[in-house]
């Protein structure tokens, strides 16, 4: 009899949890359920667990329980106040070696991607980056189900499913917003296990001298409910004024396709797609975006998509719930007018 552990790394900075961590707890719970039958038959137990690092972050550990963690391994040290690659990866590696999880999921955020490669290399195990699909599947030659991690490659033109046969844990980094939030259960109970990993002086040599908060716009398109995105069809950078106006009317934010960002029409923070952000808003309006695969993979999980393009054959229409073939410079102003009218009627 053995314990099969499904781990999630809880990402927090300054006591604030990145939402992808909760999304991954949902995924871990599902993956655990996919091996439940097999584990029962073999007399194994299955556990959904988290690892959390930081300084005075126990309250976050309790939150994790409510999102589905049976147990949280907590390393709470002043040294871990701010994220740094070396002390973080070495601490995690220490705890992983002690408990031997079968699967470990990390959010594919800037922090998570910095960390995941280091952890995987130190453990000499396989890591699949930026996954958009995860399941525990049967694989010929393996008694237990393995983690099948699917990710886009070549700018989203190909989906590759990757597995890691022998090394453990099977690691994946997962993009925010690909998976839904799990239910929150305020009555849930679970253990919090404090761990200590001794660090060398050398491990903490690199230090953060300063934090610069960009006073300029900080757009959070990842978690916006409404996104209005513009593409090359806008013709000029000024075209984004119209996009902004529509986004403003809808209480949403402005997104953009890669060519606009590459051309310097708008900052990278707005870029939706494989090389930008994955988004999952309630409403996504794509205007003048042809719909290259690399864009589509970043927005196709939106609840409702309206596409506006003058080319009836634009691939963006393949993912749209409804497409309007026409000149965006006619359609959007009319849309703004209609929305204003509706809002007035509601008020």
């Amino acid at each position, binding site marked *: 009899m053995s314990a099969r552990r499904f781990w999630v790394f809880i990402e927090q900075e300054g006591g604030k949890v990145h939402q992808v961590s909760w999304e991954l707890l949902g995924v871990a719970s599902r993956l655990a359920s996919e091996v439940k039958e097999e584990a029962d038959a073999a007399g194994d137990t299955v556990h959904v667990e988290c690892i959390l690092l930081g300084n005075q972050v126990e309250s976050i550990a309790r939150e994790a329980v409510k999102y589905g963690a049976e147990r949280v391994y907590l390393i709470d040290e002043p040294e871990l106040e701010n994220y740094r690659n070396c002390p973080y990866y070495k601490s995690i590696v220490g705890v992983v070696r002690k408990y031997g999880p079968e699967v470990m999921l990390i959010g594919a955020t800037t922090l998570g991607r*910095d960390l995941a490669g280091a952890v995987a290399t130190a453990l000499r195990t396989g890591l699949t980056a930026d996954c958009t699909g995860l399941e525990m599947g049967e694989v010929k030659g393996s008694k237990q189900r393995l983690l099948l991690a699917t990710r886009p490659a070549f700018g989203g033109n*190909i989906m590759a499913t990757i597995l890691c046969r022998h090394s453990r844990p099977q690691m994946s980094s997962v993009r925010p917003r690909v998976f839904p939030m799990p239910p929150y259960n305020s009555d849930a109970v679970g253990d919090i296990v404090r761990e200590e990993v001794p660090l060398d002086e050398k491990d903490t040599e690199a230090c953060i001298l*300063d934090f610069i908060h960009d006073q300029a716009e900080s757009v959070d398109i990842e978690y916006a409910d409404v996104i209005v995105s513009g593409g090359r069809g806008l013709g000029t950078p000024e075209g984004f004024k119209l996009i902004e106006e529509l986004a403003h009317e809808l209480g949403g934010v402005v997104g953009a396709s890669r060519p606009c960002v590459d051309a310097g029409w708008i900052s990278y923070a707005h870029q939706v797609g494989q090389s930008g952000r994955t988004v999952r808003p309630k409403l996504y309006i794509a205007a003048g975006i042809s719909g290259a695969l690399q864009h589509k993979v970043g927005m196709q999980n939106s609840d409702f998509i309206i596409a506006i393009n003058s080319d009836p054959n634009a691939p963006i229409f393949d993912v749209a719930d409804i497409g309007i073939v026409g000149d965006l410079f*006619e359609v959007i102003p009319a849309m703004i007018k209609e929305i204003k009218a509706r809002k007035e009627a509601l008020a």
Partner: protein
Amino acid sequence: MFHALVAIKQVPDTTNIRIDPETGNLVREGVPAIMNPYDTHALAAAVEWKRKLGGKVSIVSMGPPSFIVTIREAVELGADWGCLISDRKFAGADTLATSYVLATVIQTIHEKDPIDVVFFGKQAIDGDTAQVGPGVAVRLDLPIITYAVKIRDIDLVKRHIIVERKTEKWTEVVEAPLPALVTCEKEIAEVPFAPLPDLIRSLRYDPEMWTMDGPAVFDTEYIGVRGSPTIVFKMGTPPLPEAGEKINSREVGVEAAIATAFAKADAAGILQPILGGVK
């Protein structure tokens, strides 16, 4: 003297990739091969600091002999020396095996000619994994600074580097002891337009070819397919979602087209809560 080493990769220009309409396979033929754009900027930063401090820039790349052109491009942009690690036995490597080979080669170079800073692009545009840089840092036990947008200082006397790195929330100013490994965003440096003599030198430049047989010593356990814990289980094109309705505003009129679109969004329960929520 400053010694920078830049690890570069040749990648297909993913903006030009297309799918064969008959087979649904990726057509790589005719797709231009380029130096990974992030690597180009990392190289530009290395060259900038070489010019400031005096010293040299070395290049390593891994891949088939056709990658020589990419090393030549690096020489055009100001690199002084390059080697291509090329051996069929390295083929099929995943990020773990790749980081082993690169780390071994960098270590070998370092022993002969100590390196101050190892530069990587933040990720390659074909794989988008961003794993090899951190992997090499762990193997060489170097401090790593990812997502670097600016190098504030490299001090060869105090033996430190100060870098600005961009996270989702803020920009951090990080100091690390040398030698260090930095992975770079495009903002790190502008790619220069090389002077003609550099270009001509690069066209005639032949990089050193390193293989399994040397000069670096590899353990066959850790290279190629054997050294790669992950395998590709299957490949496919992304599933085509079902296309929704399309209305032509030139035919039905703009207002009618919008009315249809909004009616459908209403039916899906999308629009009302959004409009209701906006002040």
